[in-house]
């Protein structure tokens, strides 16, 4: 079964066009205020895109996927709903999305190799792996007012005491959907769909204005 | 019946308004009637009135569990139009429209029918194609209608955002000049008073709790005030129709949903027509008192609670503010809900049933106020003759088995 699946490297080196993140256009149109730029004070909320990561959707039975993932990546599937496992380096994560669905995020250049190895490890198991890297992007939100920006935007309880580290949910964000997670004490991550990325970006700038929100400038363009 | 007139008003003023007659009696139920109408909303009261007036059947009771017109009739946003797509529904709603045009005179009661026109906006090319098609169909059926472009809409409603910058720019609209609004309470009260004057017994606080059926023929109803007999019973109970059908031993193809509406604080006149948008999903008009009258879609779950959820209200107001940024700071005064009986093809059921002599008139869902006179008129004729009136016949419950649905979802995305 598995060898009849056509798998290809979406990030092949021979690509001649520079990849643009889903927010490339937004940066030009709506600008990228530096943290604290507007207020002259220290910014209490900072957003930064972590573009071009590898996003894989895993679907299938938890046991077989868990075994394969431990073997190939050294981390297992989160056991509980709405939770998130992050590896020791904080570079790779896997999140529960539904009883038979997980989101795996890894550095972009590892995506193809990982998918290939996972497929080999899983053999003929009844699973699906889909590379959705091009369809979504990850926005990081930090700063002491981060959760206040979120409170204005989502129906989910984002009180830091309720939304503890290691939690991750799919919920509503300003009427669109978002995958919202908290990998560590200081960071929130929003995974948004490509076609809604501009809207979410502009919403965040607006919602964060009172906290002097700014945009951290790393990883705007793919280093080729 | 004391007739209302300008002269009468002067006369009463001279007597310090001390001898106005009650609008209707409060009779004790008789043991037996020729016809029982269950449900004292606009449709039920209109049915009773036309039974008495057009068919000489005056030994009629309207059995209402609460107060007259306290159901959806009192809760609706009063849009009246007849520009439906299919021939069957166009005939029904246009029949109603013609009756609306003479109603205040006919029942000697000012129902404040105001033909201020209704706009159904188009925001996409497909919307505009549908509008073209519907207006063409309307004209073939002798119903007034025009297709307007964005400029035409803007000139009718200067305060609406018809610019290209809008999130869903207005591309045009269908415009029915004869459409408009009426005063919902006055419709119920006017029919009640006129029916009462012809001898109809209006029994309020009387709830039907079951049916008496023998050999497949209806014999009467059980109520909290005792049994009442009749060989012909018409149920006009809107959101509660499934409950009554179950009492008679069958199901209906209906689901009862909450439908909400709101009114704002009163404003100076700013909007002299009715604006509806299927796409942005909201509609608005301004009452004579000055309140903005606002509504949109149902709450998606079944509910008999006469209330809905907050997200629906929020969605509705977002749509309104999208179309009318000028209203973004207007305060809402009141919000409420009704129980609407939605049908799979967005058309009503006016029909005989498995039980002989038991008829149902229901399924008007979110848009039956506009049909009130027409619905009552054809239903009365059907009850009187024992044969469905030709305009009512296509709305038989059999269509859900034969497949001859009348799919008005297209014309009625916001089906009011």
């Amino acid at each position, binding site marked *: 079964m598995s060898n009849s699946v056509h798998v290809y490297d979406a990030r092949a080196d021979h690509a001649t066009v520079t990849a643009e993140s889903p927010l490339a256009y937004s940066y030009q149109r709506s600008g990228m205020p530096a943290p604290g730029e507007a207020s002259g004070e220290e910014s209490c909320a900072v957003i930064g895109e972590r573009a071009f990561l590898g996003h894989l959707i895993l679907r299938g039975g938890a046991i077989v996927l868990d075994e394969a993932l431990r073997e190939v990546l050294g981390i297992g599937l989160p056991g509980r709903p*709405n939770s998130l496992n992050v590896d020791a380096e904080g570079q790779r994560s896997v999140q529960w999305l539904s009883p038979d669905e997980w989101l795996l995020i890894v550095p972009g250049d590892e995506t193809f190799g990982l998918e290939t190895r996972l497929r080999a490890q899983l053999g003929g198991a009844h699973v699906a792996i889909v590379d959705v890297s091009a369809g979504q992007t990850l926005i990081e939100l930090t700063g002491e007012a981060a959760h206040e920006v979120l409170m204005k935007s989502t129906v989910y309880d984002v009180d830091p005491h309720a939304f503890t580290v290691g939690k991750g949910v799919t919920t509503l964000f300003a009427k669109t959907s978002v995958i919202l997670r908290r990998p560590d004490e200081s960071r929130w991550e929003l995974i948004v769909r490509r076609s809604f990325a501009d809207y979410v970006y502009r919403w965040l700038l607006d919602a964060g204005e009172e906290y002097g929100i700014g945009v951290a400038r790393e990883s705007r363009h793919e280093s080729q | 019946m004391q007739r209302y007139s300008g002269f009468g008003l002067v006369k009463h003023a001279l007597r310090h308004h001390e001898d106005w007659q009650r609008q209707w009696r409060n009779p004790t139920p008789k043991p037996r009637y020729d016809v029982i109408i269950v449900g004292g909303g606009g449709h039920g009261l209109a049915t009773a009135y036309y039974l008495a007036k057009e068919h000489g059947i005056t030994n009629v009771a309207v059995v209402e569990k609460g107060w007259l017109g306290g159901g959806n009739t009192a809760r609706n946003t009063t849009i009246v139009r007849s520009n439906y797509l299919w021939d069957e529904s166009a005939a029904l709603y246009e029949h109603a429209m013609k009756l609306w045009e003479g109603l205040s005179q006919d029942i000697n009661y000012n129902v404040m029918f105001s033909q201020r026109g209704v706009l159904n906006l188009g925001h996409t090319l497909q919307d505009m194609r549908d509008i073209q098609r519907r207006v063409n169909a309307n004209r073939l059926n002798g119903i007034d209608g025009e297709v307007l472009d964005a400029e035409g809409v803007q000139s009718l409603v200067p305060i609406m955002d018809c610019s290209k910058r809008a999130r869903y720019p207005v591309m045009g609209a269908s415009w029915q000049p004869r459409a408009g609004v009426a005063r919902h309470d006055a419709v119920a009260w006017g029919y009640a008073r006129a029916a009462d004057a012809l001898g109809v017994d209006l029994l309020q606080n009387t709830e039907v709790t079951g049916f008496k059926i023998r050999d497949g023929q209806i014999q009467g109803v*059980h109520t909290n005030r005792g049994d009442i007999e009749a060989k012909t019973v018409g149920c006009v109970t809107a959101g509660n129709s499934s409950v009554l059908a179950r009492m008679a031993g069958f199901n209906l193809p209906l689901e009862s949903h909450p439908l909400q509406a709101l009114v704002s604080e009163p404003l100076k006149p700013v909007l002299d027509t009715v604006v509806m948008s299927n796409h942005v999903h909201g509609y608005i008009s301004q009452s004579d008192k000055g309140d903005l009258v606002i509504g949109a879609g149902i709450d998606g779950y079944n*509910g008999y609670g006469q209330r809905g959820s907050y997200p629906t209200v929020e969605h509705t107001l977002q749509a309104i503010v999208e179309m009318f940024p000028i209203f973004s700071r207007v305060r809402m005064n009141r919000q409420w809900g009704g129980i609407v009986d939605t049908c799979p093809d967005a058309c009503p059921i006016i029909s005989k049933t498995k039980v002989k002599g038991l008829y149902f008139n229901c399924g008007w869902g979110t848009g039956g106020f506009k049909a009130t006179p027409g619905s009552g008129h054809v239903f009365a004729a059907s009850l009187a003759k024992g044969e469905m009136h030709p305009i009512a016949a296509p709305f038989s419950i059999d269509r859900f*088995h034969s497949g001859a649905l009348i799919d008005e979802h297209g014309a009625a995305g916001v089906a009011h």
Partner: protein
Amino acid sequence: MFHIYCPYCEELREEEEFHPKGQAHIARPEEPDACNDEEWGDYLFFRDNPRGIHHEMWLHAVGCRKFFNITRNTVSYEILETYKMGEQPTITAEHLAREEKTAREEKTDSAQVAEGGQQTVGASDAAVASIKGAQA
């Protein structure tokens, strides 16, 4: 406004994340081609639409995207339970009616016990009796 416990996410979530999807436990006819018009129409269009206890499907649309079932009172809107697809409700109209009846019998001065909003299959006792009487 509902606060709904998703049996898959195992927590209470806001109503906005969900879509109601109509009456639950409607079995598709095994052989649609063998249905007559009446059976097929009943399956497609006719619904219980009870005033009281209702079993309905909901979708956790912006969440885990799973369908599940809710037992809910359509008058008070109280959610009595949620359960996964393929499972059966533990709270039903019949079950509540039985409980209510026992409670009534246990009371000595019980003549005036209110019916509550729990009349669910539509038919009141009186109505059922009248139909039965008619057939007899």
